[in-house]
């Protein structure tokens, strides 16, 4: 019999990652913990070795997890809460459960029996990461061969080991994995502790710096070369030609503006990418955000001779970052205005309470549709913004590459104002941060539609469903 039973029937289900549910989870957690504490305390009290084992595990996890500033504190905890004197087992369970990093206790019996490797205990963070119940077969949680190897070494060879684990999916995270052997349980069951530490920030920072430098140096070279060329001309034979000078200065100003915009976009893309794995927590009404953007872009559209056609059924509350949502709407509508051209129209629709499949459903039977970003767990309701322009449309072959940085569709003019080629990349990364999606639908010669969809907050989704 495993030492640590499943905590209690009231223990929270692994969350689907929706932050409005977080408070419900916390509530359930508090209830669950109370029951769990009683159950486990009773079970463990009769077996002192078990309590010691768990407390050792939990404390070593705390020490490993805490950074340098907290190390002294943790060390003092180790001394005071030495397993012999002991914090009550229930309190230790609470510590393990509440740790922000995933922690698991794994048992194994026979090195050849892979089905026999069990997760005896997984704290809330681990259950959320691996989407498992508190007790499960190890292989349903992890199948990465390197992680399985360090677990085996800790279990059967008693060797402490570390490795990296990449969770995969659109919300990519990197984890440092530590496996530590624990004292064996009854009937010779070997035990090991598995602790994961989030390394996403460090990895992203490293990669981002390299990407930024490469992109910036490559894309700034062209406008810079043209500026330098014009300066030479102005110094030389155009020196005394006021007409040419004015024209050149105008071109130079445009290039300088383009460089400024490029740097601004690159920096904003870097910022968004760095925070991409941190889900926003504010509540934003999409209809307000969209109509704000429509108002702000009105004069510009009028100047370009483009009419807006707005269908915004509000309110649509989503969990998000207001500035970023505004940026999404702005980039899409701005693109629409650019491609619609003089005398064209841009249609902006807000539709609430759709499933992911409905949000990306093809509206034009002759068109091609492609999903450019699909959320990992699309089992909830969404609010979608559709922006349709009456422009020339996009050829099917170009669709998969639209969100690539600096990708421009060949032979297409985006009006006098040249884009930076980063607008849709920014939209994609913002949508990924919001656990939303992005799709494009287009027929050559008959305009293009971009759809972004955000998961609705729980309350709104419930109202829409009923």
């Amino acid at each position: 019999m495993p030492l640590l039973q499943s905590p209690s029937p009231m223990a929270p289900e692994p969350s689907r990652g929706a932050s409005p549910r977080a408070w419900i989870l916390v509530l359930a957690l508090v209830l669950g913990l109370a029951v769990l504490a009683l159950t486990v305390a009773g079970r463990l009290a009769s077996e002192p070795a078990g309590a010691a084992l768990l407390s050792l595990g939990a404390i070593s996890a705390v020490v490993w997890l805490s950074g340098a500033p907290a190390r002294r504190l943790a060390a003092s905890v180790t001394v005071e809460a030495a397993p012999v004197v002991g914090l009550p087992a229930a309190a230790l369970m609470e510590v393990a459960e509440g740790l922000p990093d995933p922690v698991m206790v794994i048992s194994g019996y026979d090195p050849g029996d892979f089905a026999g490797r069990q997760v005896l205990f997984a704290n809330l963070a681990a259950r959320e990461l691996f989407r498992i119940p508190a007790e499960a077969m190890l292989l349903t949680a992890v199948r990465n061969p390197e992680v399985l190897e360090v677990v085996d070494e800790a279990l059967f060879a008693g060797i402490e080991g570390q490795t990296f684990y990449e969770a995969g999916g659109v919300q990519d995270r990197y984890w440092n994995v530590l496996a530590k052997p624990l004292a064996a349980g009854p009937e010779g069951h070997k035990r090991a502790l598995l602790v994961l530490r989030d390394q996403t920030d460090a990895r992203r920072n490293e990669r981002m710096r390299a990407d930024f430098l490469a992109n910036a140096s490559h894309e700034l070279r062209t406008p810079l070369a043209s500026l330098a060329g014009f300066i030479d001309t102005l110094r030389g034979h155009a020196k005394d030609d006021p007409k040419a000078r004015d024209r050149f200065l105008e071109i130079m100003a445009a290039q300088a503006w383009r460089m400024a915009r490029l740097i601004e976009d690159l920096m904003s893309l870097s910022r968004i990418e760095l925070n991409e794995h941190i889900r926003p927590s504010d509540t934003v009404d999409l209809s307000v955000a969209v109509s704000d953007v429509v108002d702000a872009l009105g004069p510009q559209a009028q100047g370009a001779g483009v009419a807006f056609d707005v269908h915004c059924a509000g309110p649509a509350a989503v969990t998000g970052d207001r500035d970023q949502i505004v940026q999404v709407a702005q980039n899409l509508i701005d693109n629409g205005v650019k491609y619609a051209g003089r005398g064209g129209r841009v249609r902006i629709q807000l539709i609430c309470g759709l499933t992911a499949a409905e949000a990306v459903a093809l509206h034009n039977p002759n068109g091609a549709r492609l999903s450019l970003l699909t959320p990992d767990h699309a089992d909830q309701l969404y609010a979608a913004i559709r922006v349709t322009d009456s422009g020339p449309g996009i050829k099917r072959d170009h669709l998969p590459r639209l969100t690539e940085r600096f990708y421009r569709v060949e032979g297409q003019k985006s009006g006098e104002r040249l884009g930076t080629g980063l607008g849709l990349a920014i939209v994609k990364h913002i949508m990924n941060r919001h656990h939303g999606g992005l799709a494009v639908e287009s027929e050559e010669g008959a305009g293009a539609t971009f759809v972004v969809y955000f998961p609705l907050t729980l309350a709104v989704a419930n109202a829409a469903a009923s």
Partner: protein
Amino acid sequence: MEHTVKAYGEELKNLTADVVRLGGLAEAQVADSIVSFARRDLNLAQSVIERDDKLDSLEAEIERKAIRLIALRQPVAQDLRHTVAAMKFAMQLERCGDLAKNICKRSLILAEAEPLSPLTRSIERMGNLVTGRLKDVLDAYTSHNLDRAVAVWARDDEVDEHYNSLFRELLTYMMADPRTINSCAHLLFIAKNLERIGDHATNLAEIVYFEITGEELMSERPKGDALQRIL
């Protein structure tokens, strides 16, 4: 379901564990093959090629266990579907491993030539998409989640679109500069291998559907006609 013989249940569980392990190996092979290609990491490519034996022997073992289970325990209904699905699953995964190995062999050759950066990035993007699908379908298998399996199955067109776009891009490159033909030919095969891994992910989704429901997933799948226009 209660089994009269406890060992029978254990055997079934063991079979699943082996399939999931093979899945983990295949997933890592595919992911590593893309990294070794994109970063020109020769050591990684070499180790992917060497690890392929592991996949082959695990597949053979799964087949042996499944046959043994069918012969000795004569499973019916859900258990039978489970056993047959394990065998079919293993076969598809082993094929994915072979394709990953082939990508690495080509990476070794490509590393000797000049890098073609924009094409490399396009292939890397397609590779990440395919890895994601493989991960999704394996998650669906371990968690018995029908919806996720169907979602993978329905999204096959994304990989095809990427492949067609890449195909065209490669043709343009080769026409513009015949010196790149050698490298581009290898890239074309790498793209094709990735596309086939994507197809295997779709097949895996069908197997998961069959295992859970006992029915075949046969309705119309959204399918692009872009390739027909190219050919």
